[in-house]
């Protein structure tokens, strides 16, 4: 007892003293931490600091591991450890103690423990598993603070795999009486949604409850989730538009409690969140947009320009106005707003104005014209980021007329830029513009030279590759090609004659290739001169061994004259003893080919680079060597993944050789792999940069995409013309409107009158920059100019990621074209939702009250009445898609009724479904590129009838493109219905059940039918490269493995088997490497499945992977069937 009292007495004052007074810096400075900090500030050198900290750390280490240390002391120690870590010294020994503190301490100590854990540990740290129980306990605590802390830490770091353990409790907290807990719980769920979306799928309706929470804070928190959800699928949340608008109205109208105000602006964060959501909802949707016009107008009106926070809201508002379906009145106001931003003397606002301009300029080039003088000013702005943003803006308005000026400006910036990311980004953009709009060959080559020399070696590899491809594949006219190549050769020769040591390696490689291929075009050039120039590269200190290989290859191509051979021989000799195996190989090639001129002309005919080279990828010419080695006792080669697989199998406990899930070690490794794309892209080096860029690229793509669609085909183009006219009227504005210039310039210290000379220059610049904008219609901005179409011919065929990025408008427009061509598909793309709903609602009204058991009810019903099904579809569909016809004459006659747009595709046999005296129902399915269409033929052999058909399935989404469910079928004719099918959930076979009700001569009758089709009808070949395959493979989570029988084929059982599979299941064989085969396919267009096959002990070991659950299993079943049948 006395012990307890003593403890109480000693603990009380410390509890009271340390934390009772907020902001007590003086007290803490007496603490050990204070001593440490003061100690550090007194030091003079980095070395001393290091010594002190090391000393400190060892003393902390000693104390934390001592059993006598109380939790109170531990708390103090942790704070010190955190401080040491912040200074950059590792204190990993304290991690486990931080977890312990969170576990065992009282509230205050716990709090420090949690803080230390969240600062020390990474999301992937294994120690985090030890925290799960603590969090679980605290979540269930009755102490609010503990619950709060637990929720905070869950939001900060929590192992992804353990989310299911706490999810129910976090969910429960959504109903907590305290709003702070509800708010935190919502944010925690938001976090879960971000890192593991499928885990929280089932609680979407609870989010709605959070949205309707009486506490505005909880509602605000729920908007984070909604923003995310709507970003992914706006269609599903259109019904909430009115609610969001109402909320925004209330907020703008000041209906929220005062304490949500920030500098007397009502809940700005909430407003901005709502504006973002609205812009997503209103995109491409006139009806939804109309709902929000009023509140947007109000927001624009209410936000007075007086404080940063209102500017932030205005900016978001403007973006929203330009994203949703346009309304001229609002656009006008938004344009004024942008003007205010751009002309503001505050740099931050100017920057934001430029950003807004960049966002809207493609829709409204007039705006850029209005502000052209400001834009010119910004080009020379002292702040780099303003310059950068201006270039971004110019990049968006580039056309064939202003390209030279804009590219010049961008190159100027590149020359001064020190930031790698910017350099890579800008170099890519310049290359893109050069390819698109190059006015002539000379300019193109010179610009690309600048790109190569400035972009250096960090540049994305696609740029030099694309450039070389462009050169080699050429354009339509031979003569033009020749000129371009010749110009390149000339320019490179002169570069090499200058100082090549300053050129980046990539550029040198490009030069080598071009000289090797095309220097023969220059008649007066002796190859020996070129060889000497190339040889000089070999001797340069900075040349990488990669570059040297390029040089040697180029030399090999050039050494066909007597004198050249001697130079080549010399070089070859030097490098044939190089340590670098690649170099040695190249040197050997050079040596042999230069000696034997006949062989040389056979292997490397001049100008023959266009012929495709056949590569023996299976390396079959090495078979002899391999078998020799094997017979000499060498172990057979196992590829990397197989070795890993075997390794993990030997580690894992599972005795099943091929289970459904991966062995533990591989799965955990693949999880980390999968996470990497979500990481902040900070890893340095080439690969890091390229991923960076692809992220960036995709973001630009998104923007362009949005822009295009808003102003897309029906709605806005009509309205757009007047805008363009205005733009034309305003052409002379750079020369004419001094008022405007005055506005533009007033924000700067320089005035136009003070510097007429400079001003004239600027005006000239303006007219050259914006010239194309006004005279040419803005359509040119969105479409490719003639020249690019020609230039990029080669590139487009190759469809590199670069190309896709550079040209989103084209790809999307061609997609649109496709849609338009295909009447059926276009209709499908109309609101799918409603039509599905329809099909699901009908049966309810008909007979069965419960929608869920509909299908079953009908099936069983069908079975009893099933006699009128003449052929059981089961017999047909299994195994093969298109079995031999039994009823040929009927089939033929019905085939003629196939809709014209489907006649180009293969269709299955037409199966009779059901019939009675007057009606005959048959069906077949047609496989188009991105859907499967069920075609139902109704043959009416008596008089006119009104009929109605419903088709539904649990696993398939059935869309009926026709408007009215009831249709009249005239007597003695055939009516055709189409239903497009998409897969909701993969299954081996899909069954569709249908009901036909018809009224003829006043009587109502109905029939049931069913139709079965295999998964294979939905499988399409997926064309991917081996690299893409590799990266996809790692990203997919669902997999299955099985051994299949190999076909008995003497020669190449693997390729024979794969070909059989390919034929039956329409798969795509990516590559066959030795005993392994890579196969890819996708479920319709968007759900890929990869298959990895390996011949192993006379059987075919197959491993399927897909992001879609069940798909691998179902596909495997079909593979099995296909091979058994064979």
């Amino acid at each position: 007892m006395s012990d307890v009292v003593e403890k109480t007495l000693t603990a009380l004052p410390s509890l009271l003293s340390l934390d009772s007074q907020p902001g007590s810096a003086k007290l803490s400075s007496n603490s050990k931490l204070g001593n440490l900090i003061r100690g550090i500030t007194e030091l003079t050198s980095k070395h001393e600091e290091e010594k002190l900290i090391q000393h400190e750390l060892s003393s902390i280490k000693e104390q934390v591991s001592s059993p006598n240390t109380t939790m109170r002391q531990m708390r103090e120690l942790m704070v010190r450890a955190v401080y040491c870590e912040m200074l950059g010294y590792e204190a990993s020994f304290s991690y486990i103690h931080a977890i312990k503190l969170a576990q065992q301490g009282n509230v205050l100590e716990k709090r420090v423990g949690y803080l230390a854990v969240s600062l020390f540990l990474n999301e992937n740290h294994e120690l985090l598993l030890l925290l799960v129980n603590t969090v679980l306990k605290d979540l269930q605590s009755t102490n609010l603070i503990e619950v709060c802390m637990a929720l905070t830490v869950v939001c900060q770091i929590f192992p992804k795999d353990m989310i299911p353990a706490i999810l129910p409790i976090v969910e429960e907290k959504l109903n907590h009486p305290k709003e702070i807990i509800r708010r935190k719980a919502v944010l925690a769920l938001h976090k879960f949604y971000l890192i593991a979306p499928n885990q929280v799928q089932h609680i979407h309706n609870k989010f709605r409850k959070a949205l309707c929470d009486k506490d505005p804070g909880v509602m605000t928190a729920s908007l984070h989730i909604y923003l995310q959800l709507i970003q992914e699928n706006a269609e599903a949340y259109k019904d909430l538009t009115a609610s969001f608008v109402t909320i925004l109205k209330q907020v703008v109208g000041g209906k929220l409690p005062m304490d949500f105000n920030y500098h007397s602006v009502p809940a700005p964060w909430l407003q901005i969140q709502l504006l973002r959501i609205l812009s997503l909802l209103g995109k491409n949707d006139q009806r939804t947009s109309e709902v929000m016009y009023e509140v947007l107008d109000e927001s624009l009106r209410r936000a007075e320009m007086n404080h940063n926070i209102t500017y932030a809201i205005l900016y978001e508002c403007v973006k929203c106005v330009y994203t949703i379906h346009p309304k001229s009145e609002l656009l006008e106001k938004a344009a004024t707003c942008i003007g205010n931003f751009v002309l503001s003397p505050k740099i931050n606002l100017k920057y934001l104005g430029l950003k807004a301009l960049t966002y809207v300029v493609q829709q409204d080039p007039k705006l850029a014209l209005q502000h052209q003088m400001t834009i010119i000013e910004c080009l020379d702005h002292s702040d780099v980021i303003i310059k950068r943003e201006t270039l971004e803006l110019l990049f968006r308005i580039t056309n064939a007329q202003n390209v030279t000026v804009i590219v010049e400006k961008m190159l100027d910036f590149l020359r001064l830029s020190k930031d790698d990311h910017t350099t890579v980004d800008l170099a890519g953009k310049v290359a893109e513009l050069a390819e698109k709009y190059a006015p002539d060959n000379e300019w193109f080559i010179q610009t690309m030279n600048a790109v190569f020399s400035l972009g250096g070696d960090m540049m994305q590899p696609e740029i030099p590759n694309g450039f070389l491809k462009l050169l080699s594949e050429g354009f339509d006219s031979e003569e033009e090609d020749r000129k371009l190549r010749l110009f390149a050769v000339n320019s490179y020769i002169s570069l090499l004659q200058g100082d090549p040591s300053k050129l980046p390696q990539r550029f040198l490689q490009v030069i080598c290739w071009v000289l090797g291929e095309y220097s023969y075009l220059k008649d007066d050039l002796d190859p020996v001169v070129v060889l000497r120039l190339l040889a000089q590269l070999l001797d340069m200190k900075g040349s990488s061994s990669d570059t040297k290989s390029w040089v040697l290859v180029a030399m090999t191509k050039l050494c066909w004259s007597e004198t050249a051979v001697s130079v080549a021989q010399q070089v070859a000799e030097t490098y044939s003893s190089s340590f670098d195996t690649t170099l040695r190989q190249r040197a050997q090639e050079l040596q042999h080919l230069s000696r034997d001129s006949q062989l040389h002309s056979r292997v490397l005919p001049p100008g023959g680079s266009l012929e495709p080279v056949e590569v023996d990828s299976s390396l079959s010419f090495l078979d002899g060597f391999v078998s020799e080695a094997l017979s000499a006792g060498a172990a057979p080669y196992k590829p990397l993944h197989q070795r890993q697989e075997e390794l993990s199998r030997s580690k894992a406990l599972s005795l099943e050789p091929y289970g459904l899930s991966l062995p533990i070690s591989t799965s955990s490794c693949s999880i980390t792999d999968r996470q990497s794309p979500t990481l902040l892209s900070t890893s340095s080096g080439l690969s890091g940069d390229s991923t960076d860029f692809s992220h960036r690229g995709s973001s630009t793509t998104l923007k362009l995409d949005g822009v295009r669609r808003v102003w897309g085909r029906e709605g806005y183009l009509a309205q757009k013309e007047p805008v363009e006219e205005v733009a034309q009227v305003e052409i002379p504005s750079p020369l004419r409107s001094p008022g405007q210039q005055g506005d533009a310039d007033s924000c700067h210290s320089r005035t136009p009158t003070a510097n007429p000379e400079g001003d004239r220059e600027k005006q000239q610049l303006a007219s050259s920059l914006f010239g194309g904008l006004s005279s040419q219609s803005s359509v040119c901005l969105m479409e490719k100019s003639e020249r690019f179409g020609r230039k990029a011919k080669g590139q487009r065929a190759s469809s590199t990621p670069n190309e896709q990025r550079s040209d989103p408008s084209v790809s999307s427009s061609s997609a649109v074209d496709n849609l338009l061509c295909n009447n059926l598909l276009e209709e499908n793309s109309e609101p799918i939702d409603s039509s599905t709903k329809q099909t699901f609602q009908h049966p309810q009204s008909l007979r069965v009250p419960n929608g869920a058991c509909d299908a079953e009810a009908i099936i069983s019903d069908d079975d009893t009445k099933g006699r009128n099904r003449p052929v059981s579809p089961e017999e047909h569909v299994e195994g093969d898609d298109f079995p031999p016809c039994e009823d040929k004459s009927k089939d033929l006659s019905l085939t003629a009724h196939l809709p014209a747009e489907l006649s180009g595709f293969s269709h299955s046999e037409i199966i009779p479904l059901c019939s009675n005296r007057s009606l005959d129902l048959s069906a077949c399915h047609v496989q188009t590129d991105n859907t499967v269409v069920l075609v139902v033929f109704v043959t009416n052999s008596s008089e006119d009838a009104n009929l109605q058909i419903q088709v539904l399935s649990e696993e398939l989404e059935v869309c009926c493109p026709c408007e009215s469910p009831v249709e009249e079928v005239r007597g003695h004719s055939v009516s055709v219905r189409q239903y497009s099918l998409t897969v909701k959930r993969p299954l081996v076979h899909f069954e569709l059940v249908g009901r036909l009700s018809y009224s003829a001569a006043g009587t109502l009758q109905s029939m049931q039918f069913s139709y079965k089709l295999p998964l294979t009808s939905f499988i399409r070949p997926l064309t991917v490269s081996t690299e893409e395959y590799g990266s996809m493979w790692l990203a997919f989570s669902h997999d299955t493995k099985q051994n299949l029988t190999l076909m008995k084929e003497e020669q190449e059982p693997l390729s024979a088997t794969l070909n059989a599979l390919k034929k039956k299941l329409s798969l795509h064989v990516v590559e066959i490497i030795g005993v392994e085969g890579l196969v890819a396919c996708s479920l319709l267009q968007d759900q890929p499945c990869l298959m990895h096959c390996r011949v192993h002990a006379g059987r075919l070991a197959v491993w399927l992977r897909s992001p879609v659950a069940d798909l691998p299993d179902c596909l495997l079943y079909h593979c099995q069937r296909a091979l058994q049948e064979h």
Partner: protein
Amino acid sequence: MINFLLLFSRQGKLRLQKWFTPLSEREKKKVIRDMTMSVLARPPRTSNFLQWRDLKIVYKRYASLYFCVGLEEKDNELLALEMIHRYVELLDKYFGNVCELDIIFNFEKAYFILDEFLMGGEILETSKFAVGGSVEEADTLQETMEEYMSKPAY
């Protein structure tokens, strides 16, 4: 979403770091180094924004302390600036005329306030929290005391 928040002094000494995306230690160090270097090198009278890799950097100086936030491309820079300001207001309210020393010596408190303000890279609380932070602090103490009193054998 905010990716990180850093507080550092004019000498480039880190005072507080908060990461909302998982990064390795090495990457964090690189970010910190790059941020201090590029922010401190900014000439006067320039904007408060920077581009760094694919992130937008928003920074603001309060006396001797720089507040620096890394944002994603789609985020609103001005809003982030106000977010920083709000955080400073909070610190000011809690410490009472806050200065760099307060944050150095009580950095864990600064973290606690931040945790109540931002959660998972999003603003948690835009209202009341000015009082909220300190209220909770007091609450904590009270609760602890209650717990302490009710379970003296602890």
